[in-house]
């Protein structure tokens, strides 16, 4: 049987390997390149990085990855929506609840104010940063309240979740968007709480500032995305078809 050929390499070599890697290369250890497996970019990769170094890329990449997942979820629901709307016999559209226009205005403005906050932070104007953060936060909460009132408008008209497919999708999509926006509100609150905390730190701490900026930038991507997502959902629910 082939298996019996096996040699357990382990026992014989564990001693020597301990000394091999990495040492001895100033003098004798230099070796030829082997087998052409050098990467095309010899110096690619992580770069000259200390362990405690902060890489601002991390938050941004992470945020885009999160948003890719969010995008796929809403893409799936969109396809379900389009598919379902084609089965016309049971589809009954209703008109835009008037408060939705208010919500839309609120969330659009909050994107602008958030951008103001982000820029204030970039110019190290922490007071302005804090103010604009609060304003964006309040606008976000205002959006949520306005959405809730819009739901009540519909309920008053007798339109519920299970009334017809359009209302089912309407409540589902607005609820999922609101859920994501609530996460965003938590994010903004977190940033705001940090502004209170940061006073204790040394302002000249450059790494701390870069980290804060990276956080605010990543949060900005999320907040603007939620804004754009709302506009998209609004168009899908009421302007499409």
């Amino acid at each position: 049987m082939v298996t019996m050929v096996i040699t357990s390499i382990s026992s014989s070599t564990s001693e020597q390997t301990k000394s091999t890697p990495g040492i001895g290369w100033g003098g004798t250890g230099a070796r030829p390149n082997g087998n052409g497996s050098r990467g095309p970019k010899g110096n690619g990769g992580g770069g000259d990085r200390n362990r405690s170094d902060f890489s601002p890329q991390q938050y941004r990449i992470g945020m885009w990855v999160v948003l890719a997942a969010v995008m796929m979820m809403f893409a799936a629901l969109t396809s379900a929506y389009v598919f379902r709307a084609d089965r016309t016999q049971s589809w009954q559209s209703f008109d835009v609840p008037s408060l939705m226009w208010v919500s839309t205005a609120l969330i659009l403005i909050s994107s602008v104010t958030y951008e103001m906050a982000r820029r204030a932070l970039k110019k190290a104007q922490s007071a302005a940063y804090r103010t604009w953060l609060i304003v964006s936060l309040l606008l976000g909460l205002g959006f949520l309240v306005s959405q809730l009132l819009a739901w009540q408008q519909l309920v008053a008209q007798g339109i519920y979740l299970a009334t017809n497919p359009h209302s089912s999708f309407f409540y589902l999509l607005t609820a999922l968007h609101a859920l994501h926006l609530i996460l965003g509100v938590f994010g903004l609150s977190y940033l705001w709480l940090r502004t209170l905390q940061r006073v204790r730190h040394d302002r000249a701490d450059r790494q701390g500032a870069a980290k804060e900026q990276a956080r605010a930038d990543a949060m900005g991507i999320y907040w603007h995305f939620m804004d754009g997502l709302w506009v998209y959902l609004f168009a899908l629910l009421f302007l499409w078809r």
Partner: protein
Amino acid sequence: MEEATAATSGNVAVTETHAPVETSHHGPAAHHHGPPTSFIRKYIFSVDHKVIGIQYLLLAIFSAFVGMLMSVLMRVKLTWPNSSITILETIFPQGAPGGQMTPEFYLSLVTMHGTIMVFYVLTTAPQGGFGNYFLPIQIGAEDMAFPVLNMLSFWVTFVGLVVIIAAVFFEGNQALGTSALGMWLGGGGSGTVGPIGGWTGYPPLSALGKIAGPGQGAGMSLWIASIAIFCVASLLGALNFITTMLNMRTRGMSLMRMPLTCWSWFTTAILALLSFPVLLAAGVLLLLDRHAGTSFFIPGGLVVSDQLLPNKGGSPILWQHLFWFFGHPEVYIAILPGMGLTSHVLSTFARKPIFGYRAMVFAMFAIGLLGFFVWGHHMFISGMDPRTGMAFSVLTLSIGVPSAIKTFNWIGTLWGGKIHFTVPMLFAIGFVSLFVAGGITGLVLGQTTLDLAMHDSYFVLAHFHLVMGVAAIFGMFAGVYFWFPKMFGRMMNDTLGYIHFWPTFIGVYCIFVPMHAMGIVGMPRRYSSFEEYVFLARTEPLVLLVTIAALVTAATQFVFLFNFFWSLFKGRKAGDNPWNATTLEWTVSSPPPFDNFGGVVPVVYRGAYEFSVPGAAEDYTMQTEPDAESAAAVTHGELAQGEQGSSGNGHDGHH
């Protein structure tokens, strides 16, 4: 119980942890984090990717044995329909009266076996387990990008597993099902067995609730909830994998120098990221149909249990589209990490560089990409425009091209190599064999005309069990045997390894090859009994053969279980690099220190598979070994920092 086991092995994993060397260059403001000291932070709610990896692995091993037990029960029911297993009656008095499994009980086993195996074994172990443990080490990072999210991802998975086990008991146990919680979850359980719906949970059956019969009450709601929870956990994991790989590679670790395992985890993470949200959305729609009276999946005019349902105009096919848009990439989520690991192990034990490294990377991406455009081949029989069917068919068959590239490259790697038939190597070769054997029938089923005849027969069962079930499991076994010394500092027992491999390898072929024949004869899957089908009478000897093979194979797995836990304590001590392998995890101690590299940034000078380099003293060259050019550069002082950083033995070279 899960927690207890996690704790024991975590203990083993980190005993040799030594605090990282206190470094001076950070400056006083740098937050230096040392290993946690409290038991709970260290072994249970740990943020260390290594502990989390082991937790995932143990969760998967536990789930795998539960799933395997269910498959054994199914075989027993099929072969000896009147056999009586008393313990079943104790747990499910109505599902198995007198210890005899009812057809509902069988269907419930089908459902739970599929769900637990696909989600909690095939998706957790290769990615959450090995990926968590080894991705950061192989790219030279000290941890994952977001350690806290990483911890959350494991514990959310754990909650999902608890929920799916609860689903069985809320549905199958009269007392629990009619409790307040059970009633709130979906009008109570049916009191007979667990949820029934297969791992695909097709509506309308799954969307109707208790009215639809046994297995459709509280248990079904919990089943859907468990899947949704699992989706969230997978997304958290995928987020971490992608960010870590893109952003935390160490100095010199260019993309094309990464081990193929890292590429496979990266591809898998992308697939998970883009497919799980779709399943999550579908799960939410299904729950709304069950609990809020919507009609996403429930068609109009449906009469169930002599009752006309009020729903209008929903489409069961919509679920199939959403489910399989996730379901097909899921197949690759299960198998891709195995492919990466197989490449890694084959190269290591053939003592040859991997054949066609770049082709391997691109083939992996091609498989992943094509995987998103072939979901329709699961639905040929659901009714489909023939032109659409043709498009799905052609795309499906084209996956054969990257798959063949990988297979030939594996053979090319073995060709003329100095092969060491170690236990991980045998499992890796077994993976190639099973992947070919199971993949080839994919070309049969991918054709619309043939699929119409074969659909939902044992042929399909044989196909996907070989290719995504057993092959992926072989990949995991290869991983356990290969990395066990690194994870726990001890070798697994070789003899027990061979005793595990051969019966398993022969056994799975004895189980699944006859199933092809049964499928061609016309045996439908998911039936609990074939006694009334005269045309299937002649398959009886095959059914018996399959069952005996299944029992032997299942029993053999306990050899593995024993070996695993025995070796934790009694295994031969392993050195840093027992296999003479080249990648970064073998440069550090076994098990690795808390921050993986003892505070030192490893520097990488070469690709991952430099075996038998002409002119080298050994038949392997570590990635950290500088080449002639870099050595020359250092003498001119250009890479001074790199020089000191590269030493993997603990002293801190920074100033």
